[in-house]
C-alpha cells in the first residue's frame, strides 16, 4: 500500500507545477505560486471543486446559442466548428480546475465524432453529459452514456432491435468502455449484451421542424428473453423483462454485473494512470498502485473524486521520476503553452475567437489530435496502441509541433490585431535577474520544462543559441541599455535574441514532456 500512501507535506514549487501540469491543461506562473505550500488534499479540493455548467456555444452571426434550436442543415458545418472551438475556448480560459482535462479524458473514452453523428446539437448534449459526470459516478455515467442520443447514433445502438441485433455497442461497452479485453468475456457475452441493449432509439435527429431531442425505449423492439453470460461474469443471467421499464432495468442489471468484476475498476484506473501519471505499467505498479487504487474505486461505489484525490495525493505521484514522464498531447502542448504565458482566448463565439479556434484545431488535427474527430472508436492512438505516448512523435509531428511554437513565438498567431503569443521581452523582464544570462536561462528553463536541464545544456542555450559567438557580458550591456532607454530599436535587438532562445527551447525534446 505504500505507494498509495498520502503525501502530506506542503507542496514545493516544483511539486505544485507537476500537479498542475498533470491535473489541468497547464498552469500559469501565478497558479504555481498559489499552489506552492498547499498540502495535496487542499490542492485537490480546489482542483475538483464543482462548478456550474458553462453557457452553451453560440452562433457568431446572432451571438445566440443554436443548441436549443431545430436542426439547420445550411449552418450545420459551422455549428460543428463553433462547438469544437467553444470547447477549446473552455480549455484555454479555464481557471484552476481539473474539469476540462477530465472532459478530454472521458470524451476520448466514450468516443463519438461529429463526422459520424453529423448533428452538432447531439454532440453538444453529449459533451455536456461528459462534463457533468467527469468527476462523478461511473455507474451512472455508463448508464446515461448508453442512452445518449449521439452514442446511440455513433455505435448504432438505435439500430439494435430484437431478432436483428447490431453488436457494435454491445461489444464496445465491454471492450472499450467498461472492462477491456482483460475481462476475458466471450463472443457470446457480446451477443448477450447486445440483446440486453435492444430497443433504445433517439428521436429528433436532424429534425428541422422541432428542437426536441429525446431518447425512447421501444418495449416492442426489446428482446425479452433471459440473457445468460459466461463464466467471465460468473455465469450471471440478466433476467429478461417486459414493459416500458424493461430497458432500464436490464441495463442497470448488466452494468452492475460488469462493475462487480474487479477487472472493471482496474481497467479504468489503468487508463487514468496512463493519462495522468506515466504510460508504462510495470508488474510492480500494477500490484502496488493500480490494484489498491482500483479498490478505492470499488469501495467508493465507483465515485471518481476519491480515486483522483488518492492518485494526485500519493507518494508515487510525487516520486521525482514521474516528472516529465509523459509526452504531451498536441492539445496539452499548445494550450499548455498559451496558458503558461497567460494568453486568453477572446470572448467565446466572436469572430476572432473562432479564428483562433479554427487555427488551433487545424494544428491539432495535423498533429493527430483532431478535436471531437477521433478516427476510430478506440480514441487517439497514443492512448491505447503499442508505443503509447511515443506515437505522438514522428519526424512529421515533431516538425509540426515546432511549427506551432515558432508561430507562437514570432507573433504570427494574430486575429483582429491581437497577437496570441508571448512577448519574450516581457516574459524575461518578470524574471528575478534578466540581465544575467546564466540566471535568465536557468529560471526560464525551470519554468518551462517539466525536467531540469543539465548545466551543459543551459550553457549550450546561452553560448550557442542566445549569444552565439559573443561573450556573455555582452548580454548584460545590451539588456541594461534597453531597460534604461527603452525604444523600438533597442527592444528589437534583445527581442530577436530572446525569440531565438524561445524558439530553440520550444523545439527541444524536453519541452515535449509533461
Amino acid at each position, binding site marked *: 500500500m505504500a505507494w498509495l500512501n498520502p503525501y502530506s507535506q506542503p507542496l514545493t514549487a516544483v511539486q505544485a507545477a507537476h500537479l498542475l501540469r498533470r491535473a489541468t491543461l497547464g498552469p500559469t506562473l501565478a497558479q504555481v505560486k498559489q499552489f506552492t505550500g498547499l498540502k495535496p488534499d487542499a490542492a485537490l479540493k480546489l482542483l475538483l471543486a464543482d462548478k456550474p455548467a458553462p453557457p452553451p456555444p453560440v452562433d457568431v452571426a446572432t451571438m445566440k446559442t443554436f443548441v436549443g434550436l431545430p436542426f439547420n442543415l445550411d449552418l450545420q458545418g459551422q455549428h460543428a466548428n463553433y462547438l469544437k472551438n467553444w470547447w477549446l475556448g473552455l480549455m484555454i480560459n479555464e481557471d484552476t480546475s481539473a474539469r476540462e482535462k477530465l472532459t478530454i479524458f472521458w470524451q476520448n473514452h466514450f468516443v463519438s465524432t461529429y463526422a459520424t453523428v453529423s448533428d452538432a446539437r447531439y454532440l453538444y448534449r453529449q459533451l455536456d453529459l461528459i462534463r457533468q459526470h467527469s468527476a462523478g459516478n461511473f455507474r451512472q455515467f455508463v448508464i446515461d452514456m448508453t442512452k445518449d442520443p449521439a452514442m446511440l447514433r455513433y*455505435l*448504432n445502438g438505435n*439500430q439494435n*432491435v430484437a431478432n*436483428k*441485433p*447490431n*453488436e*457494435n455497442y454491445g*461489444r464496445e461497452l465491454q*471492450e472499450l468502455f467498461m472492462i477491456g*479485453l482483460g475481462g476475458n468475456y466471450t*463472443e457470446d457475452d*457480446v451477443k448477450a449484451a447486445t440483446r440486453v441493449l435492444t430497443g433504445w432509439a433517439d428521436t429528433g435527429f436532424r429534425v428541422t421542424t422541432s428542437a426536441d431531442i429525446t431518447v425512447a425505449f421501444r418495449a416492442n423492439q426489446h428482446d425479452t428473453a433471459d440473457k445468460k453470460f459466461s463464466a467471465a461474469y460468473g455465469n450471471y443471467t440478466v433476467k429478461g423483462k417486459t414493459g416500458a421499464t424493461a430497458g432500464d432495468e436490464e441495463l442497470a442489471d448488466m452494468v452492475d454485473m460488469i462493475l462487480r468484476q474487479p477487472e472493471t475498476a482496474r481497467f479504468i484506473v489503468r487508463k487514468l494512470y496512463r493519462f495522468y501519471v*506515466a504510460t*508504462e505499467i510495470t508488474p510492480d505498479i500494477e500490484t502496488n498502485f493500480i490494484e489498491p487504487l482500483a479498490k478505492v474505486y470499488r469501495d467508493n461505489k465507483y465515485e471518481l473524486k476519491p480515486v483522483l484525490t488518492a492518485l494526485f495525493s500519493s507518494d508515487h505521484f510525487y516520486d521525482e*521520476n*514521474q*516528472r*516529465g*514522464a*509523459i*509526452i504531451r498531447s498536441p492539445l496539452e502542448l499548445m494550450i499548455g503553452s498559451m496558458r503558461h504565458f497567460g494568453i486568453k482566448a477572446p470572448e467565446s463565439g466572436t469572430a476572432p475567437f473562432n479564428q483562433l479556434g479554427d487555427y488551433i484545431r487545424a494544428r491539432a488535427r*495535423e*498533429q*493527430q489530435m483532431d478535436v471531437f474527430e477521433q*478516427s*476510430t*472508436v*478506440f480514441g487517439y*492512438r497514443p492512448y*491505447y*496502441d*503499442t*508505443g503509447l*505516448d*511515443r*506515437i*505522438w*512523435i*514522428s*519526424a*512529421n*509531428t*515533431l*516538425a*509540426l509541433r515546432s511549427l506551432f511554437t515558432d508561430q507562437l513565438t514570432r507573433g504570427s498567431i494574430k486575429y483582429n490585431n491581437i497577437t496570441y503569443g508571448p512577448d519574450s521581452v516581457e516574459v524575461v523582464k518578470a524574471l528575478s535577474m534578466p540581465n544575467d544570462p546564466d540566471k535568465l536561462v536557468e529560471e526560464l528553463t525551470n519554468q518551462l520544462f*517539466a*525536467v531540469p536541464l*543539465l548545466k*551543459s*545544456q543551459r550553457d*549550450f542555450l546561452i553560448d*550557442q543559441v542566445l549569444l552565439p559567438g559573443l561573450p556573455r557580458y555582452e548580454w548584460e550591456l545590451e539588456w541594461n541599455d534597453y531597460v534604461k532607454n527603452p525604444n523600438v530599436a533597442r527592444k528589437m535587438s534583445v527581442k530577436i535574441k530572446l525569440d531565438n532562445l524561445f524558439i*530553440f527551447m520550444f523545439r*527541444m*525534446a*524536453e519541452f*515535449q*514532456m509533461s
Partner: protein
Amino acid sequence: MKRRDFIQYATAGVMTPVAFGGYSANAYGQSALLNSLASVANVNDRVLVLIQLNGGNDGLNMVIPLDQMSVYNNIRANIAIQESKVARLTNTLVTGLHPAMTGVRDLFNEGKVSIVHSVSYPSASQSHFRASDIWFTGASSNQTLTTGWLGRYLDTEFPGYPEKYPSTDMPDPLAVQISYITSTALLGPEQSMAIALQNPDTFATLVGDKVSIDPTITANTAAGRSISYIRQQQVTSVQYAGQIKAAAAKGKNMVAYPTGNSLADQLKIVARLIHGGMRTKVYYVSIGGFDTHATQTDATDTSIGAHANLLKQVSEGIKSFMDDLKLMGIDKRVAGMTFSEFGRRAGSNSARGTDHGQAAPLFVFAGEGIKTQFVGKNPNLSDLDNNTIKMQTDFRSVYSALLTDWLGETTSLSTSVLNKSYDPAPMFRQTVAATEDPFVTFRMYPNPAVDEVRIESELFGPGGIQSLRVVDMAGRQVSVPVERFNNSSYRMSVRGLPIGNYIVAVEANERKLTNRLIVNR
C-alpha cells in the same frame, strides 16, 4: 548476398497455370527455376507496398462467390450485390469482384493480382484493437508481441538502425509511411523503422536541414528515455530530409490519379519516390472507414454506397499506381498487399451493415511474378463458424511469401521474423496438383471449331467449372468468353482466336482436366 535464397519463385516468364498432356509439371518447374536465376540480380530492387484497410473490410462484398449466390443472397439480402452487376474475372466463373472494383479486375485479368481467400489465424479476435495488433505484429491470438513484423524484418536486414544509417549502401529511409505517424507493423525493437511523411516536397523545409541538438546524455528514467527517443527522431528525420527532397524532385508521376481519393493521393507519392530513385524497401499507406456496422450500401442499389465508395478508392488507387509504375518502367519491382484487421459477418444486420467477423480475402498484386491467382477457394457459406467465415490461409503464410518469394529473404529469416515457420502462400509459385489424371477429360464439340464450342462433362460435379483457361502453343494464355448453361454444360466463343491449336484446361470438382482444341475456319 549469402543470406538470400538463390531460388526465386516470383519471376517473369510465360507460365501456363496448369500442366497439361505432353508437358510434365517437372519441365515447367525446371524452366521456372532457370528463369528465376536470371533475375536474381534484381532482388535488391524489390519494393513492398502495404495497404491497410482500417476498420474490418467486408470481404464477402469485395470478392463475391458466384457459385453460392442463393445462399449469399439469403444471408445478406439487404446488402447482397446483384449477380448481374458483379465484375467478372477471366478464367473463372465462380468468383467475381464488387462492381466498383473494375481497376483491380483489369489488373487481375492481366495476371497481376492474386486473390487470397479467407485469410485469418486460429481463434481470431473480433476486437479492432487486438486484431489489428495481431496483424501488425504477426502474433498468434494467445501471444503478445511488442514489435511489428515489418519492423523485425527491417531490423534483421539492416542491423544497427538508426545509429548506423543513413549509410552508403542504404542512404534512404528503410521504410516510408505516407502519414503523420507510423504503424505498429513498422515498429522495431527500439523505435519505428519508418519515416512518416505527408508531403515529400515540404518535408525538408518542415524538419529543417541541419541537426542542432545538443548531444547531452539523458537519465535512465521514463522522461530520459522518451527524451532520447524524441532526439533520435529529430536527428533521423533531418538526416533523411535531403534524400527525400531529391527523390521527390526527380520522380515524376506519369498518369493522372483519381481525385478525392485519399489512398490514391498516398500511392501517388509512393510511385514518385520509387521513380525518384529511393531505395526504400517498404512503403505503407492506409485508408479508414471500413467499420460498416450500418448503411454500408445504398437502400435501393446495393452496388453503391459507403462500402462501394471505399472499394472504388482502393481499386482505382491500385490501378492508377500500377499503371503509373508501368509507364515509369518499374512496375516489375513492386508488389503490394491489401489487408484489414478482420472480415465481417457473412450475414448482414438489419441496418444494412455487417458486424465484426473473422476471415476475409485479400489482394496481392505485382507488376510481375504472380503465378497463382487464387489461393484457396470461395468460402463455403453453408459451413460458417457462428456466422463468420472460416480461415483457409494463415496471414503469416502471406507474410512469409512476401518475405521469401518476393523480397528474396531466406526461409530461416522468415521463420525468425514470424517466430515460426509458415509455408509461403503460393501467390508467386506454380500450383500444380499432384494427383492429376491425364486420361480423364471432358467433351468438347465441335472440334475443330469455327466460332463456338460446347464443353460438357458430368465430372464437373455439383460446383461446376471453377476455372477455365485457354493456352496457345506458345504457352500464352488467351482470353475467351464463356457462358454457363448449368453445372455440366458451357459454351465458349472462339471467334476471337486465330487459327491454330490450343489447350483448354478446366478446374472442376477438385480435379484439373485438359483437352486439345483446334480452331479452323
